[in-house]
């Protein structure tokens, strides 16, 4: 192994993909932070954001902000000029708005990505898909956070 390569515990699983339910949204969040507004503007560069094609789901009620379930689904036909290229995951209230950027190879087919994210507080999260033809599609999801990320009582 090269010197910088070390061994960490890694877990893998594999299964057939299940179907996805769609969440309902409550609106209890504070207005988005300036950081978020700026990050969104940099990303869209004045382009119109459409809804559809992308779906974002986060736990409606998160027991701890240090780990909140998150699922992104994008309809993505093969061999078309408007395939998804990049998905931006943005938080309205975190100190750093960008949570992750997902770069998707061409001809991937429908995209389903799941991860766990940190949320400082109750807020909306946005997933914005940029297509190969430049079009933008977005969806948002709200999580009520019962215990904020980054508290440690021991």
């Amino acid at each position, binding site marked *: 192994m090269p010197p910088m390569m070390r*061994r*960490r*515990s*890694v*877990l*893998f*699983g594999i299964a057939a993909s299940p179907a996805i339910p769609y969440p309902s949204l409550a609106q209890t969040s504070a207005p988005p932070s300036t950081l978020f507004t700026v990050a969104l503007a940099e990303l869209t560069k004045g382009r119109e954001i459409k809804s559809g094609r992308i779906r974002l789901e986060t*736990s409606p009620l998160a*027991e*701890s902000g*240090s*780990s909140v*379930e998150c699922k992104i689904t994008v309809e993505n036909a093969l061999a078309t000029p408007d395939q998804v290229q990049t998905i931006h995951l943005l938080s309205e209230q975190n100190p750093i708005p960008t949570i992750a950027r997902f770069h998707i190879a061409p001809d991937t087919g429908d995209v389903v990505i799941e991860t766990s994210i940190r949320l400082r507080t109750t807020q909306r999260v946005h997933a914005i898909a940029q297509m190969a033809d430049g079009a933008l599609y977005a969806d948002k999801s709200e999580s009520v956070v*019962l*215990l904020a990320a*980054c*508290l*440690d*009582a*021991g």
Partner: protein
Amino acid sequence: MGGLRVLCIAIVLIHSHTIGAFAADGPLRVEAQPLRSASEFLSPALRAEQADPIRNRGMLWVEQGERLFTQPPPGGAPSCATCHARAETSMRGVAARLPAVDAASGQLVNLEGRVNECRIVRQSLPPLDYETDELLALTAYLTALSNGEPLAVSIDGPASAFYAYGQQLWNERQGQLNVACTQCHDQSVGRKLRGDTISSAVPTGYPAYRLEWQTLGSLHRRLRACQLGVRAQLFELGSREYLALELYLKSRARRHPIDAPALRR
């Protein structure tokens, strides 16, 4: 690991109406009732995560522990497996019997202590500190090998004094809030505190992955969190106080099957 510890700021919130309910002095009642594990109070989402070997992040330490057990440590010392062969058979049930009194020293020794004893005596290596990934990994691996085994600690003979001390600590009011373990974990089971539901403090899931810690943690770390919650004088991880409490908790929950690593909020 040091970096991880300072990532988060200590904030302790106990709702004032809860303190009020505990403040009245008076004799402590201890009611006999079936013990309820914190796993019972997990949300369905967290319970599903705990049961899923890929989503249960504690399994990352179990995997690391298996590697540490079988691979020889750097420096030429024999691996754990050199002496203990296949852990699946040699270590099954060990975690359920500990802590136990060591015949030679007369001290109460838990799993962490046993592992460190072998490191010092059999491998000529320095002991591992509590809450290091290595010690958590080895104890998580060895405990998981006893999953399903009922707790079966001995409180007879030389262990009886340690048990009595643990029981005393359990019933003693402590901290600025002047609350005893028993007031929460015997008398307030099912009640909400800081968004948690108070369980019977069944210690079968430790080491456990706690979302608030964002890592795996030992039972002693959990006990320290409870002491912090009542703003009490903290004991050292691995201290005789925590060891005595560990023995008391494991005896109190005897026959409850080990189910580790658990997932906690």
